[in-house]
């Protein structure tokens, strides 16, 4: 049905160049990405242009190696008595920016937590950089931003202290921090725009800023793979745009991203591939799309429900944001 096969985008994207910051340019002046011209048009050129942009650059070192950065095969996870993932297979290669979408309870958080070894597999296989997760030990290559863990605990901590804990994987157990460790923490704080708040209590920051502290914590280890679990949940629009700006810089650096999202929001322009889960199964894996519509499926973010039939989409509800390509256009494409 679609003129541009969704999967072709994913296939064409492993190589990421340093240039796509052009795409991110509107972010610099704080304009929301959804306003970006390509998405307004909803034209096939949107995806095509982005893919061309990325493909134009030189292949990054490491992308030639065919080993997936993160992969699950026939993964089945049971929490309590309930099967949460059923026969899920997914492979993320270097330089990809993969959005993991789905309604509440679809298993998207469980999938990334399985990849990180936080949830045991009932069946199938999970690998990081080619190594089965239970045997994986090179954790310095992985950065994790948990879902709304909250950056505060029973004892106050400064922004700098929390971000420093993200450097432990690189620093090594029982070693003193080196100058490089300190520089990495400062650099991570600068990346998320919180360098001037380093000495403040985390609890005095806004929700969005606290989320950025957790992102900086993951960045402090300079990971090759960054896994983010709903980084924009409950975060104000300004922080969401700041986050998209950070992601653009990471993509330029060649970091592979796996992002669990409830809605695509300002990240739309950076995502190279979208995977949609429904009731623990992958129902879409391919072309990225804006909110509301993913590769022939309609996500009703208000009702937290995924419909299988795009023609059944209630056009009236979809409207809130006229910037997005509507489901009807997708069907016609």
């Amino acid at each position, binding site marked *: 049905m679609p003129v541009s096969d969704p999967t072709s985008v994913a296939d064409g994207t492993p190589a990421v160049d340093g240039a796509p910051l052009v795409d991110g340019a509107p972010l*610099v*002046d*704080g304009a929301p990405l959804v306003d970006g011209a390509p998405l307004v048009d909803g034209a096939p050129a949107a995806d095509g242009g982005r893919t061309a942009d990325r493909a134009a650059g030189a292949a990054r070192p490491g992308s030639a190696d065919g080993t997936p950065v993160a992969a699950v095969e026939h993964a089945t996870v049971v929490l309590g008595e309930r099967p949460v993932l059923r026969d899920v297979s997914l492979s993320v290669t270097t330089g990809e920016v993969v959005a993991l979408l789905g309604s509440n309870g679809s298993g998207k958080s469980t999938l990334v937590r399985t990849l*990180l*070894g*936080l949830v045991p597999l009932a069946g199938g296989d999970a690998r990081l950089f080619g190594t089965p997760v239970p045997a994986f*030990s090179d*954790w*310095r290559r*992985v950065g*994790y931003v*948990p879902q709304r*863990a909250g950056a505060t*605990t*029973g*004892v*106050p*901590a*400064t922004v*700098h*202290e*929390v971000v*420093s*804990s*993200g450097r*432990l*994987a690189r*620093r090594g*157990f*029982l070693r003193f921090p080196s100058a490089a460790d300190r520089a990495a923490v400062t650099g991570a704080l*600068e990346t*998320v*725009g*919180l*360098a*001037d*708040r380093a*000495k*403040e*209590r985390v609890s*005095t*920051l*806004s*929700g*969005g*800023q606290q989320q950025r502290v957790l992102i900086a*914590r993951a960045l402090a*280890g300079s990971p090759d793979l960054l896994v983010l679990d709903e980084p924009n949940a409950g975060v*104000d629009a*300004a*922080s969401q*745009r*700041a986050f998209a*700006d950070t992601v653009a810089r990471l993509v330029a650096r060649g970091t592979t991203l796996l992002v669990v999202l409830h809605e695509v929001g300002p990240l739309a322009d950076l995502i190279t591939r979208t995977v949609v889960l429904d009731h623990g199964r992958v129902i879409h894996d391919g072309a990225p799309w804006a909110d509301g519509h993913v590769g022939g499926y309609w996500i009703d973010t208000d009702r937290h429900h995924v419909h299988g039939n795009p023609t059944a989409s209630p056009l009236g509800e979809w409207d809130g944001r006229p910037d997005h390509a509507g489901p009807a256009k997708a069907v016609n494409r």
Partner: protein
Amino acid sequence: MSILHYDFMVRALIAAVLVGLTAPAVGIYLVQRRMSLVGDGIGHIALTGVALGFLTGTSPVITAVIVAAIGAVAVELIRSRGGASGDVALSLLFYGGIAGGVLLISLAPSGGNVNLLGYLFGSLLTTAASDLVVMGVLGAAVLLFTVGLRPWLFAICHDEEFAQVSGVPVRLLNILLAVSAAVTVTVAMRVVGVLLVSALMVIPVATAQQVARGFVATMAGAMGLSVAVALTGAVGSFYLDVPSGASIVVLAVLVFVVVTVAASGVRRLQRRSAAAGADRVPAPAVLASENAAADAPTAGAGVPGR
């Protein structure tokens, strides 16, 4: 000072310093995990160990360390499993510990109410030189662990899953932290007693965090405050002839109240002057990047909603 002429008083003050340093050094991690009362539970369990010492004629300190360590590891395993029944399991352990202690002490031939009271609420002035050696060795080990491994212990208590994904040996450190909590309880048993030991682990931390911005500052402040309170309380117990645990903990609570009231007063003043300042001049946006600038207006609004 004339009280330093008494050997028992010198021993008491050394013991007070030891306990003042170790109790909050371990306690801060329990508070960070919002498990402040675990120290109390371990104290209950330690009582069974003390009783076992009396009953078998071995040193109560050694049996208490062993039993409390076993109990603390059990508590840690229950905690890490999660589960809805964890709460009940902890209750069983804690109350079983104290009941077992009272039962065993009553069965012991030399057991009596005087001994029991000393272990329950502290009898610092009866600290023997041999006790002091054991306390010194155990306390030094606990300090080495809690202060030396601070970045890793901070990480596992701040966000356990993140620490695991960072390759930190979470399970090992959790067990070691539980054991050092048990050791601390035993070390502090002489000074504040098993029923009050948790107070010295928690209250100085709660007091220091009223004024400190970060974790390191809270830890240093809590340890300093705890030493001061333990020393003052020990001297007080000598002059007032009261159990040392009672005088130390009452003092700690008083300092907490004073600091909390003062800190909230200072914060209110700051807020008022900040508000007055904002009325006069529009606050200049001195921010590093446009990201921060975009975020700034929401900073104040975001907090109350959370």
